């Protein structure tokens, strides 16, 4: 039994089922991120944990105490909202202590808690202001302050960074991570941004169409995606997906693809067991950073395959250069060192790290576990 248990939880509005048997155990101190495109059910699940939406079937328990039907204020949770939801008519100090006031905490204790939180978040100088007088980043801190001051069992974050501009978002992300490392609180965090999910979490639940597609550590999710959706949703630029046929050559399994000129080319799989799929079609998944120039290839890899192909476009991005080519009729993006010597419309020797390649069953879209 975990600290926060979500057991076979479903949610339906009338006949429309928006959440299908979600089963997650969250340990104390964990940072769980629910990530997925909009409409995947992640916010619904968060609202159910908060008690803002009812549970159609299944159980949610915090510290072993069943929460079904318990009023939000009695769950010992705190929530940071996407819009921050600061009360516009109250000062920052009143905003932060409103929850304590509602729970009948005496004034002196409220003031003490306020002072601690204000110091932690460095918002001492803002306490007398109204939310309308604050910048986006400051509002974000106040919203976190309001959650922290309650000292709850579980923190719930609902896309808290999506209203900030790009630079501030990165700063606040680091800030949240620091706070988690310092306070060791249990957090459930909803976002549609896969980078936030990767950087912040100790575990990720990737959700799509009301199902948890995969639950795992960021590394598991990234390197061993359970299916095609997880593979393409996580990572930017997205994983390259190529139709391929499995063939055996000298007893070793290869993926047969076509190059820019339409000529067949073969890439040897690292997993020998792929031979079981000989003669069948698969979808080959290769992350952009697994395709480099030969000098930039990962030296620890045991299976670097060279592939000579024509370059379509190069996009220097400062730290990296993205190179596009055509394989099996698809645009394939490679992530190269900034100083890789690639010229558009010329042929180039690409190095593909097949240790990092994965394959999917085109029928079920599940990863082939070989």
């Amino acid at each position, binding site marked *: 039994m975990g600290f926060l248990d979500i057991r076979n939880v479903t949610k339906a509005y009338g006949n429309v089922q928006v959440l299908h048997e979600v089963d997650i155990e969250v340990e104390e101190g964990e940072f769980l991120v629910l990530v997925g495109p909009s409409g995947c059910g992640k916010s619904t699940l968060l609202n159910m944990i908060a008690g803002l939406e009812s549970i159609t079937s299944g159980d949610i328990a915090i510290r072993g105490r069943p929460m079904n039907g318990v009023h939000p*204020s009695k769950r010992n949770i705190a929530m940071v909202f996407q819009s921050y939801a600061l009360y516009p*008519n109250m000062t920052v100090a009143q905003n932060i202590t409103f929850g304590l006031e*509602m729970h009948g905490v005496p004034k002196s204790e409220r003031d003490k808690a306020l002072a601690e939180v204000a110091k932690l978040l460095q918002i001492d100088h803002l306490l007398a202001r109204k939310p309308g007088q604050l910048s986006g980043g400051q509002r974000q801190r106040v919203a976190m302050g309001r959650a922290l001051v309650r000292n709850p069992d579980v923190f719930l974050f609902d896309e808290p960074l999506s209203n900030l501009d790009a630079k501030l978002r990165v700063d606040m992300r680091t800030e949240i991570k620091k706070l988690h490392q310092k306070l060791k609180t249990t957090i459930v965090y909803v976002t549609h941004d896969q980078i936030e999910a990767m950087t912040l979490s100790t575990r990720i639940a990737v959700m799509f169409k009301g199902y948890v597609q995969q639950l795992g550590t960021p590394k598991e999710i990234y390197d061993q995606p359970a299916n095609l959706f997880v593979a393409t949703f996580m990572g930017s630029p997205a994983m390259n997906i190529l139709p391929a046929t499995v063939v055996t050559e000298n007893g070793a399994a290869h993926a047969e693809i076509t190059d820019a000129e339409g000529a067949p080319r073969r890439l040897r799989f690292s997993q020998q067991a792929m031979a079981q799929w000989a003669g069948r079609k698969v979808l080959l998944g290769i992350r952009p950073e697994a395709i480099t120039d030969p000098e930039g290839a990962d030296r620890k890899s045991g299976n670097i395959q060279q592939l000579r192909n024509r370059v379509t476009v190069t996009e220097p991005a400062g730290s990296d250069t993205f190179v596009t080519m055509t394989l099996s009729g698809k645009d394939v993006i490679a992530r190269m060192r900034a100083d890789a010597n690639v010229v558009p419309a010329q042929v180039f020797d690409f190095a593909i790290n097949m240790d990092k390649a994965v394959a999917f069953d085109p029928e079920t879209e599940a990863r082939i576990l070989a």
Partner: protein
Amino acid sequence: MSAASQETAVSTGRVTRTFIYLVLLLFALYYLLPLYVMVVNSVKPLPEITGGNMMSLPQTFTLEPWLSAWSTAQIGVEPTGLKPYFINSILMVVPAVAISTVLGALNGYVLTKWRFKYDGIVFGLLLFSCFIPFQIVLIPMAVVLGKLGLAGSVPGLVLVHVVYGLGFTTLYYRNYYAAFPTELVRAAMIDGAGFFRIFWRILLPVSGPITVVSVIWQFTNIWNDFLFGVSFGGTRQPMTVALNNLVQSSTGVKEYNVHFAGAILAALPTLLVYIVAGRYFVRGLMAGSVKG
């Protein structure tokens, strides 16, 4: 007209502009003339009106017609002036506006922040009630007020105006609260505030503008009502009914100057509201017209 005036990109020639100004001024005249005539003639002695020009300024200035209209003019059969009816109207308007506004605010809060199954139908039924021709409820209302012993009383009129004003006040607050972020309500719930506390501490403090709109709308409508007043007023008739009795009385000489003074007295409260809070007045009219 709430938005800051946005400049039109259209440019016009000199002749066109002169024409436009001319038309605009002519219409200003059309709107102002009746008011001018009423004001000017309310301070003239009667012979100056019947013998002279209604457009000309008074040669002899007198407040006599105003005093007469207020306290001695013949209303129906009693020479009471409009004063008792003015008081009736005040006694009717204040509670009716207060009750319908408070209920409208609570209804709007429930319909936006505590939604339930079929709340759309409830709102639809309330909304349609704004637009019924009141003739359809006159007979049953007369019967019910009689049974309740409220016929011809101020509480009876208050009840009528509250019931038939609820649709509008609910509409105002519903539209206003619909734009209020629901996340704030959710945050307050997690903070431990209940139904009334959320309303009192979170929504009400930001409801100033819509409350002004709702109060002005209700005040104007109820003050200006004639149909309910004449049907159910009995001996406690409101100002509009008394003014009509004053003007339509067929006995004796027609004291035009007193009629005009009376008309201005009847118009004064709503006119004052319009002058002081015209911006909100217009907003109320718009909110009542452009639904949803």
